[in-house]
């Protein structure tokens, strides 16, 4: 059936090769140097990876298409910095597979949202944005509160992240589900291990206000609260300037 005996004659092949030749150069020239850039700029040894709960929250953020309206990239423009905080550094999205810089601000930039509002504010806002911001046009995400967070695949999520270069340890991968549970249940036995593995600064709280259940709301709020807080950005730039 797939008879390939028509000779694929020379002109058509030549045209194809010429197209590939002309079209590939620009991309290679622009992208290739970015893979060496890591050696020369910005190393951030203190930067931590996302906890399993935050990673799950990030996946929900992607699933709901939040990036369509919220950017996570503060430009080096004065009004951007005055409005949203310190401009975004390349290193801050180093573990973001894929990046979520976004291209449109139908809502505000949220690169430095973490810690700006309380967990309770976020939960209320996600359940119905207009309860908190009357003129908001953001969709309501009330059902996040009803959905139990999927835990069975957390270890393999972390493993896939490690496969693309995020430095998760074997221990982190093995305990992913327990850590997710522990991070949202400060009173449980699992809580201490989270801080141990991911650092003392990790938020360990009942994000959605309900310790009974681990919901998608827990995960999403945990993610939103870490935005911009993976490294201490002011200390980072100060260090870079003295060097």
């Amino acid at each position: 059936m797939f008879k390939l005996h028509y000779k694929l004659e020379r002109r058509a092949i030549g045209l194809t090769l010429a197209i590939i030749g002309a079209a590939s150069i620009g991309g290679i020239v622009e992208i290739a140097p970015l893979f060496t850039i890591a050696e020369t700029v910005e190393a951030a040894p203190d930067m931590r990876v996302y906890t399993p709960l935050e990673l799950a929250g990030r996946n929900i953020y992607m699933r709901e298409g939040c990036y369509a309206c919220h950017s996570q990239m503060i430009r080096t423009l004065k009004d951007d910095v005055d409005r949203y905080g310190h401009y975004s550094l390349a290193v801050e999205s180093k573990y973001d597979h894929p990046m979520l810089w976004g291209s449109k601000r139908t809502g505000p930039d949220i690169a430095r949202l973490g810690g700006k509002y309380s967990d309770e504010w976020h939960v209320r806002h996600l359940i119905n944005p207009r309860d908190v911001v009357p003129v908001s046009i953001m969709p309501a995400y009330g059902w996040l509160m009803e959905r139990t967070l999927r835990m069975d695949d957390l270890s393999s999520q972390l493993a896939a992240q490690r496969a693309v270069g995020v430095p998760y340890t074997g221990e982190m991968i093995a305990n992913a589900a327990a850590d997710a549970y522990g991070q949202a249940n400060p009173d449980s036995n699992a809580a201490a291990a989270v801080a141990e593995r991911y650092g003392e600064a990790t938020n360990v709280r009942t994000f959605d206000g309900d310790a009974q259940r681990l919901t998608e709301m827990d995960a999403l709020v945990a993610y939103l609260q870490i935005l911009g807080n993976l490294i201490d950005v002011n200390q980072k730039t100060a260090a870079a300037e003295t060097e």
Partner: protein
Amino acid sequence: MTVPISHETMVWIAKTFGLLYLIALSIIVLGYAYWPSKRKEFEEAPVTILNKEDRPWQ
């Protein structure tokens, strides 16, 4: 992902090679388009599609 070339070299190649390539390609394309022996081909091609007969040549 480490590449054996240093970053400066990569950037240097990117900045110079691109420009040279652009100039070279422009010359090749203009040469091709205005090559004297191609003239007939390029004059006939746009007219052939206006052919009224709607069936394969075979």
